[in-house]
């Protein structure tokens, strides 16, 4: 059996996997840099927490509404993001994060600096689910997100996103409504973050604005980039490695944030495609191996 500690770490990592996959839709597939993904995680977490503690929703409807609300807010906030490009977009999404966090922090309705407590774990068949049960739930959500991810990528939507990421103008000339597909990416990605936020709230049982700050957005983006942006495996592996890093590096407690910073820095400097991106050492090595194994395939 897994110890309680390990289960807790795995659940946290699992929630990060959902966050990284959802951000990857916006930034990896559709190519729109977002530095504010934690804001949508926060919107999901607060929606779920408020519905649960004030409106007496049970977890399940609250969970789905959290996704819907985060997605809807994402769609609305995508509109200012469409006006700006590249660096302006990056800073605008960063700004959205700060403003959303400030709203949680200063509006009494959201519990202000105290946050919201008393959010219980989900119940199933009349009893609260155990930690391993929660891990199973998170795993189920990950599976669903991966399924949706694959489905989108194999559909015309995924193709339209790829075209927009590569060349917006040319994509327009190929009959793609660029605005609509960008908003769709922001909506779906934000909805994913909202679902993750809801899980997060019901796992921690209390939430504070600081959980959804810009720092959190950077952690999520780092996971995506670390693993390899725009791939499916990249964000998953990135979330697992960077999510486990604080635990693995527990002996080097004092230095682990320093190491984290240096790791990001060195990775960007020497493996800018992430550890599992198409041009990374590992993947090129893998392809080389496979070609040796099966020569003359082309």
């Amino acid at each position, binding site marked *: 059996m897994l110890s309680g500690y390990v289960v807790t770490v795995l659940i946290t990592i699992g929630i990060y996997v959902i966050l990284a996959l959802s951000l990857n839709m916006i930034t990896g597939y559709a190519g729109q840099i977002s530095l504010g993904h934690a804001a949508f995680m926060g919107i999901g977490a607060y929606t779920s927490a408020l519905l649960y503690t004030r409106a007496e929703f049970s977890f399940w409807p609250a969970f789905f509404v959290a996704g819907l609300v985060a997605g809807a807010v994402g769609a609305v906030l995508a509109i200012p993001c469409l006006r700006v490009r590249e660096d302006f977009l990056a800073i605008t999404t960063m700004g959205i994060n700060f403003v959303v966090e400030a709203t949680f922090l200063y509006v009494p309705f959201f519990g202000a600096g105290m946050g919201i407590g008393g959010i219980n774990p989900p119940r199933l068949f009349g009893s609260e689910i155990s930690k391993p049960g929660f891990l199973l739930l998170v795993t189920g959500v990950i599976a669903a997100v991966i399924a949706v991810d694959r489905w989108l990528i*194999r559909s*015309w939507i995924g*193709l*339209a996103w790829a075209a927009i990421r*590569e060349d917006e103008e*040319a*994509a*327009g000339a190929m009959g*793609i*409504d660029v605005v609509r597909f960008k908003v769709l990416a922001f909506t779906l990605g934000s909805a994913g973050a909202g679902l993750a936020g809801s899980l997060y709230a019901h796992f921690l049982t209390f939430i504070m604005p600081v959980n959804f700050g810009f720092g959190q957005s950077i952690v999520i983006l780092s996971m995506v980039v670390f693993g390899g942006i725009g791939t499916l495996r990249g964000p998953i592996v990135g979330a697992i490695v960077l999510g486990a890093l604080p635990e693995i590096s527990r002996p080097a407690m004092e230095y682990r944030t320093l190491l984290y910073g240096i790791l990001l820095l060195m990775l960007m400097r020497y493996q800018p495609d992430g550890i599992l991106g198409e041009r990374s050492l590992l993947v090129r090595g893998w392809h080389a191996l496979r070609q040796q194994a099966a020569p003359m395939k082309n």
Partner: protein
Amino acid sequence: MALLEIEHLTKEFDGVTALQDVNLQVREGEILGVIGPNGAGKTTLFNCITGMFSPDRGTIRFRGEPIQGRRPHEIARRGIARTFQIVRPFPALSLTDNVLVAYGHRYYPRLGASTTASRTQASLQACHRLLDRVGMAAGHERAAGTLPLGFKKRLEIARALALNPSLLLLDEPSGGLRHEESQELLELIRRLNQEGITIVLIEHNMPIVMGVCRRLVVLDHGIQIAEGDPAAIQRNPQVIEAYLGKASV
């Protein structure tokens, strides 16, 4: 009726006139050449037709319906396809996917349709046929960014064909190509035209223009200075002056 009618088209940038009162018609089934020295406004004309720029004045009618000011994807869906002067394939996507992006134009407008699988047997075959049609029978899974220029240009044409266009706008298809490559491209353009696609061609390579177009329009400084068959254009003193300049200093 003309397929495309342009009347009084005018476009300015920061007070500089790029196109001034241009009037031209593209007839169904023809290959129309648009020529003129650098900076004459030829690409601006294409950008106005395809909705990348919104004209300041004038109308553009396609099959009788005004299309000026519409957004690029709407115009593309109506059957006007283009290639770019500086080639712009989607570099990280495979050749098949490049064509597939355009092939999807019939699925993008409705959310339900756009969630269906893109790489079906039928759509892949259609894209491979289009690639074959422009002379790219192999290496369909290669990333477009790694192609040599000549093939990038062919790929752009295949991509444009996937829109199932009735009007194809080609912006300097032979630019940067070697002689033999240009000749092959010329053949391709002729063939596409025979298959029923109306073509407007911006081109600097005069042997190509003269070889493939029955009718030419000449722009200079955004003004339409001549129109007619190649032989007449070659003799037209105004055209010669636009290209070669005046002699005296």
